[in-house]
């Protein structure tokens, strides 16, 4: 068995034992700048939007209730 107390057959999805018990968390570990929650979906120039627009503008048979 491993001296480092790492499980010899921990699998990919196993949360491991940490190498130490205690640590200081540095103040600058915040990475919230890399998460976007102010996404503005007003972008309608992408490929999907263009295709959707073309689809919506097509003349077609009337919509029907089932």
């Amino acid at each position, binding site marked *: *068995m491993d001296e480092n107390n790492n499980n010899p*057959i921990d699998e990919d999805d196993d*949360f491991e034992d940490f190498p130490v018990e205690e640590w200081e*968390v540095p103040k600058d570990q915040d990475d919230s700048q890399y*998460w976007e929650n102010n996404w503005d979906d*007003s972008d309608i120039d992408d490929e999907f939007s263009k295709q959707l627009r073309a689809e919506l503008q097509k003349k077609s048979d009337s919509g029907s*209730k089932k």
Partner: protein
Amino acid sequence: MSVSDANTFCFQLSEIVRSKDEIGFTKIFNPEELEENEYNSLVDNLNSLDDEIIRQIIDSFPNLELYENFIITYFGLVKNWDYNDYEKLFELYRKLYTDYMKVFSYPWQIFLLKSLSRSIIQLAYLCDLSPQNLGKKKSKIEEASRLFSSMFNSVVNDRESLEISKKMGAYFIANLAFKTYFKLNNLNLCQSFIQKLRQYDLDKENFYKFPISDQVTYSYYIGRLDLLNSNIINAEKHLNYAYTNCLNGNDFFKNKKLIFLYLTVVRLIMGKFPKEILLRKYGYYEYFYDLIQAIKQGNFKIYNTILNERLDWYIKTGIYLILKKQMEALMFRNLFSKVFKITAIGKNPMISYYSLLKAFKFVGLNDYDLDDIECVAVSLIQKGYMNAYVNNETQLIILSRKLPFPNPYVTNY
């Protein structure tokens, strides 16, 4: 430290107990700490003495009386040690662990508790996850989970004030128990740990008195449970705590990567997306980047295609069902929003049911009719995703001029 027979062993141990030497206490009960000649000498000695004599030797040291059974069991482990037989080793440790429950009383003994606990789970894994046992019932891991449960109950039941009590081992044991439950895919018993931690006043402010490694690990498991139970707000709270308090170094990377995975899933549902740089950092670009674009567009067809293409991985990580079911509302919101931006003209902001129907078909939602569209619209309004009202007669959705589609993350969370 030279331990070549029962007497020198007890002499050393007596000294260790007197001085409350937590490291010595851990090493002396680890057969792997012995040099080969020490080991052989000890085994020979133990084999030459009968139990009665051994007990007398132990009892000749007054401060070892309480440890008598534990020591005898440990001697049994030493005598029967077999590097090649994991099942046998597991049994020996199981007995030792059970005996330790009756002995373990003080915080300076937590170190040994952790060492024994790690041995239990490592041996359980070695037994159950070996290639020849693949696909079979994980009986040793199940056994380990029962051992942790028993140990946990004996640990929390202590009247001393927290910092000087064996209760300081509580979260460590709980975390190992959770590890086994997740491995066994049986999470029902997690709840009893959570309740006991609350019952014995080890949560709330007291949670923060435990080692940060315990806090992060526990928050990870609780966050995952919250996610599975669709408690999105709590899931985010717990996983974010684990994420921000887990260090960034190499030794922490595997865990941080796992935390990030489930935090991402929670935030996707809420409408907050990790940027490409983060996905690449943690190696999840191929599983989430295109998925996120599909979510933003409300493109159900692409979304479902991606899920199916990588089905095995999403299932293995336990996120397939959540991604399949929980993303709907947000995606409907985004699709409606797209249609609105494309078709809305003039002073009166509105979308026709009919346009939506075409859009739905365009993204592969072929089983919806105009009534269904109205239902979806109403649902979005009720959830606060859309500020509007529906007009069944004219088959139009009339939207708020100011803020037809509030930011989902800000609105709901």
